[in-house]
């Protein structure tokens, strides 16, 4: 990928294995506690509760640089890292940072008393989105330009394996790529 295709606003979602085991009210409590502790390396500002919206954003921890949420889009509960501000890194390094940040959130949540033993993740699939339709048009050309950086980032974080990729078909959506990792990813 060339430098001109400057990836920004990379989103990463890891899917929850058993959504039924998760009570999103716990997420509200945990996120408020994180604000009290300023637990993340970001200015944590507020919690937004969208549990009433079907297949919606769920519960969001709003930070200055990113939003961190129990996202329920497409009725598929997961932990979504949604980068808002630009980052210094470009290309694969930027994707890698986003994946690592999302993993960090997942690990914090798994370790929290509220979710211990309940929160598990799907280990053979994740989703990457480019949250700016001008940077990442959802078409085949952009998808193909993204793949080398995406693959390099995945290899850096999870190691070599036979990743496969599928782009969201609706061209109006953000450039969204579902990643299958047949040998599994460690969360």
């Amino acid at each position: 990928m060339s430098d001109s295709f400057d990836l920004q606003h990379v989103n990463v979602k890891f899917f929850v294995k058993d959504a039924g085991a998760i009570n999103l009210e716990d997420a509200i409590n945990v996120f408020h506690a994180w604000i009290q502790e300023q637990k993340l390396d970001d200015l944590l500002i507020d919690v937004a509760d969208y549990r009433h919206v079907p297949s919606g954003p769920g519960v969001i921890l709003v930070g200055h640089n990113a939003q961190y949420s129990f996202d329920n889009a497409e009725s598929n509960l997961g932990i979504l890292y949604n980068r808002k501000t630009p980052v210094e890194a470009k290309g694969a390094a930027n994707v890698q940072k986003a994946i690592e940040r999302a993993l960090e959130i997942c690990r914090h949540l798994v370790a929290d008393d509220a979710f211990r033993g309940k929160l598990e993740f799907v280990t053979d699939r994740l989703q990457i989105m480019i949250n700016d339709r001008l940077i990442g048009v959802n078409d085949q050309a952009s998808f193909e330009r993204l793949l080398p950086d995406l693959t390099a980032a995945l290899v850096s974080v999870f190691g070599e394996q036979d990743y496969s990729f599928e782009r969201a078909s609706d061209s109006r959506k953000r450039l969204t790529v579902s990643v299958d990792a047949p040998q599994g990813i460690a969360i």
Partner: protein
Amino acid sequence: MKASNPHWRERVVEQMSSQLTEELDQFETEITLKKQGKLDDRVFAETRLRRGAYGQRYDNGRRNDGIKTQKLEFPCGTLTKGPDTAWDAPGMLRIKIPYGGLNARQLEVLGELAEEYSDGIAHVTTRQCIQLHFIHIDDAPTIMRRLAAVGITTREACGNSVRNVTACPFSGICSDEAFDVTPYAHALTYHLLGHPDCQNFGRKFKPAFSGCKDQPCGLVKMHDVGYIATTREVDGKVQRGFEMYVGGGLGAVPRQAKLLSEFVSEEEILPLTQAVARVFGRLGEKKNRGKARIKFLVDKLGIEEFSRLVFEERSIMEPEASWTSYLDELDIKDEKPLRDAGSDLAGNDDPEFAKWCETNIYQQKQEGFVAVILSLPLGDITADQLRSLSDIARKYTNETIRTTVEQNIILRWVSKADVAAVYSDLKAAELVIPGAGTIVDVTSCPGTDTCKLGISSSRGLAAQLRERLAEKSVHMDQAIKDLVIKVSGCFNSCGGHHVADLGFYGVSRSINKHSIPHFQVVLGGQWSHNAGAYGLPMGAIPSKRIPETVDRLTQAFLDKKEKDESFKDFVGRIGKAEIKGLIQDLTQVPTYEEDRSYYSDWSDPREYTKDDIGIGECAGEVVTAFTFDLTSAERMLFEAQLKLEKDDSQGAAIQAFDAMVTATRGLLRLKVPNVGKDTETLVQQFRTEYFDTELFFDPYAGGKFGQYFLDAAASQGGSVDKDSAHRQIEEASLFVEACHACSGRMSEQPTAG
């Protein structure tokens, strides 16, 4: 930290009107000037408010986390976007949707913006607007450009301006209406948008249209200015017009609007509104924001005197083409069905379908067509749902979509033959929540979720009530189903609690040094008859006991109501004392040690506090038109300098002169009512009012700076080189400074008496 991609301008500029392109470039320049410290906080605050960029809770950089008030160390440091408002703090963007009208592409763009800049949700407000939350101010120009590219403006969505013109969402398809008010609401919107007569208000100004008198849809009587469609026969011809009302409003001091005229013809509706705006701008309160809405002016003068002043003003107004030009194209807002009319709604075996049809289908006056009501929980809709809805709107209709003041969306002109298929498609998008317009369909303002003024969690309570009432709705008596519940986070009534059968607004109480969120119970308001009556407060109940309060009150209504008695009449008949007796025990709060849940609000585990309440921006900043003009003049000087840097001497000189003209207009506002835009007239007025009288003369430089302006006016059109452009910018700068100084001297002069 700029989050948005600056290249969006290039992408969408071709699709924007030249006026919006210019306005948004100016706004971006104002952002640059603010960052350079060249724009006053108050002026920038009102500037961004008039562009729809609103503050949000915690933007003063402080937030109580339940234990202590934390300082939010935004990276912007001391940079602010208004008094005590951190630059980097997330804010809200209010998007005006005149009469709630939307098309499919607009839905898609709203979804895109919600995903890319907000939290994935577009929120329908109680005045048919759309709001995006958690927006960074640096992203605002890009968002506004992307909206402008699909014909949407955020201009004057907030601040002391003419707000969104609302209208009955069933206009044009309603059996009860005198006629379709849509083209009139459209015409009024664009006539008043940015109109010079609407730039000097002390507070906001909200218009509303209704097609008939008895139904609630327009809520005319709670608006600053309202119009109810009516007709009369003159010489055998039917003439269209409006009953026109002024001075309504909710808030802490609610007022029913008063009749200004029983019949205002369609030719007169725009100029007469403009006359109202002029009187409000000239005589309305400017200093005390709590008394600055037009309702207070009507109170103070009395409706007779207010009317006299309005009609007197109308008589001296110079005609404007737009007053009546729209009448030649009243049909531009006409809607046509995409598909043939159908005869019945059958065709779906889903047992939920029939239940949904009972409440979410509206029979149009046009045979064979219905409007489908999408009940949105708390007015929230996701980006995915917006895309699905845009597909459905294209597939079954000519994209005839409206938002409603009940925070729902209506899809009009659905053939009855397609209803079952539309239901299936909406179901796939999870947009078939039944109970639209019933007690389940609770509306709420943002409250403590995002509003700086919120006292209690209105959305938290509304969500709780929705969930409980939806469970009970299967076995609910129709009399209960028909009740209306509205919740506001504070007394300002953005949730419209005054006009509900059961209204609630946030208050707090303290016991043993602990604060407890409460809601004041307001009963007996009237949603029908255009919000024909306001409810009365019955007492404050702890927030966590409001669901039980609703149960008690609805049960009492069911048990004791007389045949066909409305809830309002029931409350009036049995009296406040008995009602209060019904809920008196619910006012009790367990001690902190007994039950701490009462000391937190809905969906918020933090121990409740009022520490987070900030200074609201509903009232905007009272910035005079003079200050706005002088600020614009300074911005123009900045732009002139940029042009000179790019060797555009001609453009720089023109811009410098325009800065002088704009400053002159501001100065003239201090002496001349209703200042126009014609440059020649402004130059002449400046000479007469300020130069010949020596009022403009500097104690040391005399008339030198004024002469710069007169000379520049006389030499317009001549050749310009880099040196002369440079000189003109310098002279213009000195002239603008002299305007400031002149205004200062005038304000220091003792007034008579």
